C-alpha cells in the first residue's frame, strides 16, 4: 500500500501513533505495539530515581530502528519548561521529533495555545520536527503551521476521556485551514471512534489510554490498527450520499408475478 504518512522528513507506513503510558507491564506495551502496527510511539521524559535499584529502561522494549520514539513534553505548563524538556528528549540522540504539549488546565488537560505557539516557534527554529498537541481550533492550528509545526494534533475530546470526537466540525475546519498533516490526538475510546475519525480524512490518530486501559490491550491494539486502516480506506473510497428515504437495492423491474 503506498498510502503513507509523511511528517517532517520521515515517512511512515502506519497512520496510527500510540503511547507507552498506563500499561500494566512493559511486556504488554511491547506486544500492543507489535499488534498495532504503529511505527511511531510516544514516551515521556522524567527524572531517573537515583535511589532505585537498577531500573529496567523502557528503551529495552523498543527498537529505534523499527519505530520512531517520539518524546513528549507532557506535564509542562509553560513554553520555557516544554522547550527544556524537548531539548532533553532530543539529547537522547534518537531523533529531532517532539510531541509538544503545553498544558493550560489541570482538570481538562487542554493546551495553553499561547505558550504552545511560542514553544513551537522556538523549537522549529532549532530544527525540531514539532508535532503540537492543540485544541480543535482552526485559527490556532493555522498559527501553529505558520510557526513551523510539522503537523497539528488537535484533541478529539479530553486526554484519557475516551469520549471520541466531540466536535467533528472543528476537526474539519482544521483540515481546511492547514496544509500540514492533521493528527487527532487524544479522546479516542474504541475502534469505531478511530474509524469515524479517519473517515473525516485526517492524516492519523495518536492514542494511548484506549489501548492501554482496554480489557485486553493487545487485542484492542489490533482492533485499532484495523479501524484506522478501515477508516482511511473508507475516506479514500468516498462514502455514498446520505438520503432520507429508502431506495431498493434490487431491481424494481422484472419482479416474479409482476
Amino acid at each position: 500500500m503506498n498510502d503513507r504518512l509523511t511528517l517532517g522528513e520521515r515517512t511512515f507506513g502506519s497512520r496510527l501513533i500510540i503511547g507507552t503510558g498506563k500499561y500494566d507491564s512493559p511486556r504488554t506495551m511491547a506486544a500492543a505495539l507489535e499488534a498495532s502496527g504503529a511505527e511511531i510511539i510516544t514516551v515521556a521524559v522524567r527524572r531517573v530515581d537515583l535511589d532505585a535499584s537498577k531500573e529496567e529502561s523502557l528503551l529495552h522494549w523498543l527498537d529505534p530502528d523499527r519505530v520512531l520514539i517520539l518524546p513528549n513534553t507532557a506535564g509542562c505548563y509553560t513554553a520555557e519548561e516544554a522547550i527544556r524538556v524537548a531539548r532533553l528528549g532530543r539529547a537522547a540522540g534518537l531523533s529531532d521529533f517532539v510531541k509538544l504539549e503545553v498544558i493550560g488546565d489541570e482538570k481538562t488537560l487542554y493546551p495553553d495555545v499561547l505558550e504552545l505557539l511560542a514553544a513551537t516557534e522556538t523549537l522549529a527554529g532549532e530544527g525540531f520536527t514539532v508535532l503540537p498537541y492543540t485544541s480543535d481550533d482552526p485559527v490556532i492550528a493555522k498559527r501553529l503551521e505558520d510557526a513551523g509545526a510539522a503537523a497539528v494534533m488537535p484533541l478529539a475530546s479530553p486526554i484519557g476521556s475516551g469520549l471520541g470526537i466531540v466536535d467533528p466540525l472543528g476537526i474539519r475546519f482544521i483540515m481546511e485551514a492547514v496544509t500540514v498533516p492533521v493528527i487527532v490526538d487524544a479522546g479516542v475510546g474504541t475502534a469505531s471512534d478511530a474509524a469515524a475519525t479517519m473517515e473525516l480524512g485526517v492524516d492519523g490518530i495518536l492514542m494511548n489510554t484506549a489501548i492501554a486501559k482496554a480489557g485486553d490491550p493487545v487485542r484492542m491494539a489490533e482492533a485499532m490498527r484495523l479501524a484506522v486502516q478501515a477508516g482511511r480506506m473508507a475516506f479514500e473510497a468516498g462514502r455514498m450520499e446520505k438520503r432520507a428515504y429508502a431506495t431498493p437495492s434490487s431491481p424494481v423491474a422484472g419482479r416474479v408475478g409482476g
Partner: protein
Amino acid sequence: MKTTSDEIPARAAETGPALEIRANGETRSVPPGTSVAGFLARHDLDPDLVVVERNGRILRRQDFDGTTLEPGDELEIVHFVGGG
C-alpha cells in the same frame, strides 16, 4: 568549567573532603574528583540511556567522562518512561 582527568589526578583528589551537589532536586555528597560518568556509575545508571543537564546546559555523552563535578553543581538526570 570542564576539566579532563589528565588535569586532576583522580586518586589524589578523592582523598579530599566530600563535596555537595544537587541531583534531581536533592542534595548529594560525592568524593572530590568525581566525574559525571563516575556519578552515573555510582547510581548504577547506563550512560547511554540517560540525558544529563548540568547547571542548565545539556552535556554531550562524550563529555561525561571529562566533566568533573564541582561544589554546588545542579544536575538533572532524565530518561524515557511510559507516556502518551
